[in-house]
């Protein structure tokens, strides 16, 4: 959590998943790409779209709607991939998060952010850093490090009887 002074304003990138608006700390965002071909990796959960070639590096792409258990819709013309930096266990990984559209960069003062409510979001509360107030509505500010940390994948094919590595 970001312990800022009263004067510190942070910037967030807002994006949509289905109709809802979410936000990410802009410091974590490297770039935004148009959705291009993603190579699917077999034996991975549905929310892993696959990998893409980002200037010579192979970067995984996550379908955030699937991750959050939201309904799945067709990819639209605005679908894009947000390339973010995630820090887990002192390791920094780069990955892409698929979004339906990207909106704007929002400045939010600390007093415009509320802690996440324990119920009502239908999301794992760990994933949400806070609720940002914008106009009449709100945006859910995601804690990317938490959202993508639990992604040690269980491979298909490893069964109940023999829970080896």
């Amino acid at each position, binding site marked *: 959590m970001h312990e800022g002074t009263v004067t510190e304003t942070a910037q967030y990138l807002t994006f949509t998943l289905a109709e809802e608006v979410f936000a990410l700390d802009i410091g974590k965002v490297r770039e935004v790409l148009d959705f291009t071909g993603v190579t699917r*990796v077999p*034996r991975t959960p549905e929310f892993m779209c696959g990998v893409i070639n980002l200037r010579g590096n192979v970067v995984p792409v996550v379908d955030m709607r699937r991750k959050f258990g939201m309904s799945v819709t067709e990819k639209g013309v605005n679908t894009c991939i947000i390339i973010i930096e995630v820090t887990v266990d002192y390791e920094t990984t780069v990955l892409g998060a698929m979004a339906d559209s990207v909106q704007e960069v929002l400045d939010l003062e600390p007093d415009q952010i509320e802690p996440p409510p324990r119920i009502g979001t239908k999301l794992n509360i760990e994933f949400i850093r806070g609720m940002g107030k914008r106009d009449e509505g709100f945006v859910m500010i995601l804690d990317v490090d938490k959202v993508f940390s639990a992604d040690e994948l269980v491979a298909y094919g490893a069964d109940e009887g023999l829970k080896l590595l």
Partner: protein
Amino acid sequence: MMEHFRQTFREEADELLAELELSLLELEQNPAEEELIDRVFRAMHTLKGSSAMFGFDDIAAFSHEVETVLDLVRDGKTAVTRELIRLTLLARDQVKVMLAVTAGAFPAADSQAEAIVAAFRELIGAEATAASLPLDASRPEDSGTAMTYIISFRPDREIFKRGLNPAQLLNELRELGACRITVLTDGIPLLADLDPELCYLQWEIILTTTHGVDAIHDVFMFIGEESSVEIEASHQKEPAAEEMTGKGERSPAEPARNDGGQEAAGGRENQEPLGISSIRVASEKLDHLVNLVGEMVTAQARLSQTAMAHNDAGLIALAEEIERLTTGLRDTALNIRMLPIGGTFSRLRRLVHDLSHELGKEVELVTEGAETELDKTVIERLADPLVHLIRNSVDHGIESPQARLAAGKASRGTIRLTAAHAGDSVLLSLSDDGAGIDRELLRAKGVAKGLIMTGAELSDREILNLIFAPGFSTAVQVTNVSGRGVGMDVVKKGVDELRGAIGIVSNHGEGTTVTVRVPLTLAIIESLLVRIGSDCFVLPLSLVEECIELTRLDIARAHGRQLVNVRGTIIPYIPLRERFGISGEQPEIEQIVIAEVDGKRVGFVVDHVIGEHQTVIKSIGRMFREVQGISGATILGDGTVALILDVQQLVSAEEISERQKLASETMFMEKGDNICMKEQ
């Protein structure tokens, strides 16, 4: 500049210390080996000399003490004993600590150095000898008072043969002050008897100088006993005389180059010393080079593809040339990173030595294949896993001497560590003749930890593989050496990260052997590019034996079993399209890529075999670490991503899933028949 020398000195000292350690351990096993004694002495001697040169007086003084002892050993006055080796190893460690201090580490209490020196003195029964660093030999100061001296210089006839030139000495005298030189030629024989390599001349010099008689002695410092120099102070002040050069001063070593050598090192000095047979390169530079080579390989693939597409003969020929050069560059760049694994072996040798002392066991480490070369990064990352394996072996594998004798074994246990090339991999094996692994105990532990179900049928290999599960340790007594089950799962993880494989074989009572296979290089491999649907994959070419067609007829012939007859041999295959859940239409004729996995031949079914591909390995990240069958990715010429297949994992996963299916089917059947069920 001094800092540069110091850095070089430090690196050199590190190497010396590593060599010293190795030699000491070998010396312990072969105490009479003179070559080793010499090597040990030399290492300490060089350390002393170099450290003094660059201002590290404490290291110089300390190593001087040790060198003194080693000198006695060299002369046969002190014997090589275990205690001597132990002290010398401690001394080595102490120097290492002192070196670290020079590089900025915190200085520890000085008592270690003193204690070691005291122990040495006791060992050789010597009295304290003051460590004397050589005195400064510099030219005496100019006193200011002019004195006149008469110098008789009678050089030894053979003086030229020692590379000395009397004329040069005379020049030097001239620099001290006004000189009057007279040459005496009586010694010159007749021409017929004259040997041009001998010096028949002698000189008388009258020199007036303010520098004092020591300065004169300095000039003649090197001439030795065979020549003679007499210096007499004259109490008469002679007026400064014109110098007279001697006649017949020709000598084979050409004199009179008074202007010599002082030219500025301008553009002329562009010739590098021819001496160096190897150079140091910073790791980062090497990594950068390999990265660039990787990108080059990818770009070259695209070039070749584009050339083919354009169907231009000239362009194609050029693309082939570029391919040839790129391959050469790749091989050379990767080869630069190869180092022999012997360095790691030495480190382990010391570990075994220390551990066996600490645990009261007698263990010998035998190595083979120290010259086997691996990629530098692979060696670095193998170090920790090997240390863990050795620890386990000494701690849990090798029994105490008493236990071993009781079991009818020699009291000294042996750990055998070997390395050898195998195709594009390196096979390392670590085996001990210790207690081996009790499979029943292992199985019981596995059940207790909930890793396996009671009554589950497991092959020996699967039971032994339990040892790699996290948090697993059958050590009854957790010693502080191996820790709490921290060993094997971490080892496996380390090996996996290197895209390697680890296996274990053990016989209770006889010993354990762990084999590790790692790729020679982490960066680029030759592979076979295949396609299923619209997805591309690659397999390591070194494992591929052949590709054959698989028709619908072949499939039908097998009646649901995934087997095919290849020239008389039955080969199982894995239908990758099915396993990977790839959508789209299955072609009428598919291709089986037959590869060798763990000594067996297995086929992998794909739609098309595209061809050979130089695969620059890109990591796909920790998120995919657990995916069975995919070990990395690569970028194709057209920019799309192809996944690298891990054939070993594919086969293992297949084995497991088949066994599961069989087990559940059996259960189902028995239930249906109302037969009393085995406990599942």
